[in-house]
């Protein structure tokens, strides 16, 4: 598959995301925030970083970038979209995903190898995992506290939209230990930890993140 990775002003992890896409067996296509053009890709990754310096709210300004209009339209038609960290914030600001991300409850930036439990594994980004599988994927954020009102939290838990949950320790005050969520259909997934940094033994805590990028192949032939 051809997988687009968007670069916003202030994106940090776009190059790592493109590399992870390649390791997952796909062709990475660089997309530019200012172009209302997806270049014919089959899926899109919104990478981590500090787009627009996190001004206003994380992801709030990126959400109105020309490329995002195309991403929104494609996502609504079912194109797989993965938002990592800042990309997750952009997807929440776009209201493609429920909830919002706020400053960590302890007020400090956190960077750690994070244990997670995979919960929703029928999405194009998570089908390589088993339900309940425990993985370690590095986490780094200052504003990663997942919040939503109780009715929304009950609904997404009831509908099985929680993709991953924090284990051992809640690193940022996320409600109900939620690390990642999907839309109802499952094609749009956002998560705070960084699977693109956990794809090679040489540079990471392991390769548990690779599944996010190999899952797409199964989606393509499903």
């Amino acid at each position, binding site marked *: 598959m051809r997988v687009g990775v968007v670069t916003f002003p202030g994106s940090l992890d776009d190059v790592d995301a493109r590399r992870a896409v390649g390791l997952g067996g796909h062709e990475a296509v660089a997309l530019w925030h200012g172009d209302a053009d997806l270049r014919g890709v089959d899926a899109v990754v919104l990478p981590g970083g500090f787009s627009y310096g996190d001004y206003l*709210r994380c992801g709030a300004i990126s959400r109105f970038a020309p490329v995002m209009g195309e991403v929104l339209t494609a996502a609504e038609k079912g194109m797989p979209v993965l938002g990592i960290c800042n990309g997750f914030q952009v997807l929440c600001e776009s209201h493609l995903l429920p909830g919002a991300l706020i400053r960590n409850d302890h007020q400090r930036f956190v960077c750690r190898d994070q244990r997670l439990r995979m919960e929703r594994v029928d999405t194009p980004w998570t089908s390589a995992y088993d339900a309940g599988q425990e993985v370690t994927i590095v986490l780094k954020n200052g504003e990663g506290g997942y919040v939503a009102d109780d009715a929304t939290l009950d609904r997404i838990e009831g509908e099985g939209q929680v993709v991953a949950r924090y284990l051992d320790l809640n690193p940022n005050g996320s409600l109900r230990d939620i690390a990642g969520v999907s839309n109802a259909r499952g094609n749009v997934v956002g998560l705070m930890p960084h699977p693109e940094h956990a794809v090679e033994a040489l540079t990471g805590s392991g390769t548990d993140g690779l599944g996010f990028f190999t899952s797409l192949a199964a989606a393509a032939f499903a």
Partner: protein
Amino acid sequence: MPKVVVDVMPKPEILDPQGKAVLGALPRLGFTGVSEVRQGKRFELEVEGEVTEEVRARIEHLAATLLSNPVIESYAVHVEGEPA
């Protein structure tokens, strides 16, 4: 030029870590008698021409879409000089 003010606040049920940090600093400054601090944002928009109903409606839309996130924040719009 008329100035339109948009005040944005975290919703009461949403944790406000910045407000909490400020509250925690108050006793260290010897400041007592404050039981809660909530931190929000204030936007001042200088508007060309009169603030008509149409201009106001557009600013309301801006406040609801870009300046605030309705999932976690509420907003209030007023024209400076007019009662809020």
